[in-house]
């Protein structure tokens, strides 16, 4: 199990290097990242990896693009929740620093939910998630005018299927530059 985690981290690392080497826009769409993420749902892999592994990933993000835009563009949520998990503190700080330093850059926060619950209520939940990310960015110096939010509720899943691994992928806010 430890070995497979290590392999996955190294795949992510080489992927990041590949994207950085391309020099263009990193893959910003959730569709792409979910395809590359393998079998495990991000929430599940997060609990498996523990804090230390998560720290390494963050370190790579800042090391690879010092002072630049973080590569990680998706914040995942727990079921029916809009609280931002502590593991995203560093990442959101990096986004905030980047946006605060580049006041002409705009970002769109797209809130999504899994398919459980009613559709219009889920629009509300997706909006709440996008607003939660917005608040954290603004507290750290990003101007309100740089941020727009939109909620797609459960209407734009990145992964089909009525199972926990699909649900975990679909409960998200996408940070779209």
């Amino acid at each position, binding site marked *: 199990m430890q070995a497979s985690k290590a392999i996955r981290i190294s795949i992510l690392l080489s992927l990041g290097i590949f994207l950085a080497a391309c020099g263009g826009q990193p893959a910003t769409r959730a569709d792409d990242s979910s395809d590359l993420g393998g079998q495990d749902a991000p929430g599940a892999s997060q609990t498996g990896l523990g804090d230390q592994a998560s720290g390494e990933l963050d370190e790579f993000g800042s090391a690879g693009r010092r002072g630049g835009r973080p590569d990680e563009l998706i914040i995942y949520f727990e079921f029916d929740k809009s609280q931002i998990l502590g593991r995203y503190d560093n990442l959101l700080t990096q986004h905030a620093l980047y946006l605060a330093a580049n006041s002409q850059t705009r970002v769109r926060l797209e809130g999504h939910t899994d*398919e459980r619950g009613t559709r219009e209520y889920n629009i509300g*939940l997706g909006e709440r998630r996008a607003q939660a990310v917005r608040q954290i960015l603004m507290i750290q110096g990003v101007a309100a005018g740089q941020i727009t939010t939109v909620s*797609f509720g459960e209407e734009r899943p990145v992964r089909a299927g009525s199972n926990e691994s699909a649900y975990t992928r679909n409960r998200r806010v996408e940070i779209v530059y």
Partner: protein
Amino acid sequence: MRKFLVHLLGATLLGGFAASAQAQLTIEITAGVDQAMPIAVVPLAWQGGLTRPPLDVAAVIAADLSNSGRFDAMDPRDMLEKPFDQQGIDFEDWRLLGLEAIVVGRLLPQSDGNYVIQFELFDLFKQRRLLGFRLPSTGAGLRAAAHRISDLIYEKLTGIKGAFATRIAFITVQGQGSARRYRLVVADADGANHNIIVESPEPLMSPAWAPDGDRIAYVSFESNKSAIYIQELSTGRRLRASAREGVNGAPAFSPDGRKLALTLSRDSGNLDIYVLNLANQVLTRITRNPAIDTEATWSADGSKIFFTSDRSGGPQIYSADADGGNKRRITYEGNYNGRSRLTPDGKEMAVVHNDQGAFRIARVNPENGNLLVLTDGQLDESPSFSPNGETIIYATRVNGRGILATVSIDGRIQRRIAAQEGDVREPAWSPYPDF
């Protein structure tokens, strides 16, 4: 001669089916009443000589009655005789076949190219004529005319007003990624006659009928953010009713058709319910709460608005006066009750209820909140009442695909409405048409 005509009829039906097979919805009764009434709907005698009848009107009527779950319509191939009036009916023979009622009639072409349907309904035991009508129709209107006849027969035999001459709006989704297509479709209540009203690569949601049966409000993300449109079916004309900052969602026409309840977040990022006067565009705020307030629906007299709110923690149904005053919590059973709809008489409500982890359609008494789960799916949602209040159409999942299903208000009659491909969701049953 009769054989020849039957053959021609068969060919017509087959041709018609093949042409529209892809769009067809097929209805399957999964639970009916124990004693569905056996009825014979005899193919209408065709008075047009060697030309083909434009539609097998009796087949449409027979399918309507059978699909209701309350009738068992006889296969015409089992009929020994095909009478078209009272003189031709051997009441004893039909009774011996176990039948209780019979429909006979004729389809008469007119010199102006239109038609007259003449039909009669008989009680086979009392040997009594229960109904007899002549109904003029254009060729294109024959299917609608057949549904009206189904309504008359259904009401005469059950005492319940029929809802066959109505329509259903729903959303379909096909394809993945950039090839994904969202469509708003309007079809007859029997699944025939598909018309794509809107098509978009971005999500379409929440279709809602105006009481005139000619306008539909819906949410579209075609500009990459939500906006509410109102589209007129007869002309295809549409107007953008709301594209305010933030969320524009959950439209619901008032019973007089002049106002639209809707959900907006505006600049606050928090969802509240408003009422938009469509004539003067005046916006009235109904809720002011940091909770998610959404999914408004009106009482039949327009005096109250019911809505979903998670102000107490999880989503529950609340009511308010139409000016926003007098808010009251309706549901208490379970941790998730959302997206309520009321029967036209306002005495019953349908909601989406979390039943130990499964989302199911439940019936709620809007006075005391008493709740009864009606369906047994895992992800049942979007209940909508037929205009006679007898049947709830909703969306469910079977083998990972979204399909429509119906359940009678007493839970006894259940049907699945399967589509050929793609996901089907968010059904909305039309009001009665104006004849």
